[in-house]
């Protein structure tokens, strides 16, 4: 996952919305297209534009929208701002892209960690996060910390 996409994940999480990363591939009359994210909460697919990616994909994005008109789809900046269309088409330009999202990159020392998780397990985590008014990422961090601590305690018990 690119850092710009991670910024978008954090932006959506702050709004209490979970995302699936590259969840599905759509067949187009010319090739295939895989949107960056699907958000089950608003039933919308998202393409995150960090400055150039969507520019190079613009023909594909327009084709996707024409061939799947019933699917909710948005091209957004990493900060979540929707990129408008002109006359129903994306005319993305390399030079006019907003790069201000780069200022939002975290400065503290943290690492990106990604893993595949079943829908069922994800929903359990998301439900617990909701109950505790946390983001899903925060909930996962808490659970990992708690369980790793327990592993240590179990080992101590065994050695005693």
């Amino acid at each position, binding site marked *: *996952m690119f850092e710009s996409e*991670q910024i978008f*994940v*954090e932006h959506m999480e702050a709004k209490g919305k979970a995302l*699936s*990363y*590259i*969840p*599905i591939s759509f067949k187009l009359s010319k090739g295939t297209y895989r949107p960056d994210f*699907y958000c*089950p909460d608003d*039933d919308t697919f998202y393409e995150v534009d960090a400055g150039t990616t969507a520019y190079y994909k613009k023909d594909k994005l327009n084709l996707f929208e024409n061939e799947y008109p019933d699917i909710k789809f948005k091209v957004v900046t990493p900060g979540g701002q929707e990129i408008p269309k002109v006359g129903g088409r994306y005319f993305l330009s390399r030079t006019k892209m907003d790069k201000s999202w780069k200022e939002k990159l*975290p400065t503290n*020392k*943290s*690492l*990106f*960690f*990604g*893993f*595949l*998780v*079943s*829908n069922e*397990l*994800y929903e*359990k*985590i998301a439900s*617990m996060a909701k*109950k*505790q008014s946390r983001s*899903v*990422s925060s909930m*996962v*961090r*808490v*659970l*990992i*910390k*708690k*369980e*790793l601590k327990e*592993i240590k305690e179990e080992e101590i018990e065994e050695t005693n």
Partner: protein
Amino acid sequence: MKKQIKLIYFGLRIEEALHAKIITEAKKQDRSASSVVRRILTKHFSRPQVDGL
């Protein structure tokens, strides 16, 4: 649409220290780091839940 998705790629930012702990645990268990995290989460939810945690 939601039911068609069987697996979700989930990414998050974690502190360096926590990342190091996961890697250490993965080496100990001879598993991948992502497998360790999945097992940790599955193990947690397989237990009876008390006070949410």
